[in-house]
């Protein structure tokens, strides 16, 4: 059984979703790459920010 950590699961999810978003939502390869990286950073960044928010609220 594959047991990634919570953060590893976030990274994998962000990677796969960003690749598909990049290819399907933009027309040219350079813009696909830029948009894919943008989506990846947003996925991971928002997960980190929300995690800190929940940590601070729970204290």
């Amino acid at each position, binding site marked *: 059984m594959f047991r990634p950590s919570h953060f590893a*699961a976030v990274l994998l999810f962000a990677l796969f979703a960003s*690749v598909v978003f990049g*290819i399907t939502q933009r027309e040219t390869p350079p813009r696909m790459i830029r948009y894919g990286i943008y989506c990846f950073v947003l996925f991971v960044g928002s997960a980190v920010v929300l995690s800190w928010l929940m940590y601070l609220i729970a204290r």
Partner: protein
Amino acid sequence: MATAQNKSAAGETGFVYLPLIAGWLVPGAGHFLLRKWGRGALLAASILGMFVMGIAMQGKLYGGAHDILDVLGLAGDLGNGLLYIVSRVLGLGADQVQVTTADYGTRFIVVAGLLNVIAAVDAHNLRTGRKS
């Protein structure tokens, strides 16, 4: 003449919904039909990778719809096309989510299906000329 040859070479003749249906049944197949090899390979790797990891995490494959959340999960799972059907036939995936990673796995499988639908619609848009 050259344009007609190019269109033929790009798989842009025949049944207009073929890339959509092929892309739904097999991840990336719609783009392969249109000879978009690189895009198709990346889409297939991403969607297959997400689905396989979901199964490896003992994610749940929705088999029936008992409440609204199950209906949404089943709709997402069905987006995987043949992957879902074959996995159901082989009895892969868990019946009940018992550990945290299995919950991640269930989401991975549902999202892989939704991403596959997006990829299939993209193949259709390429076929109809709405996207280049």
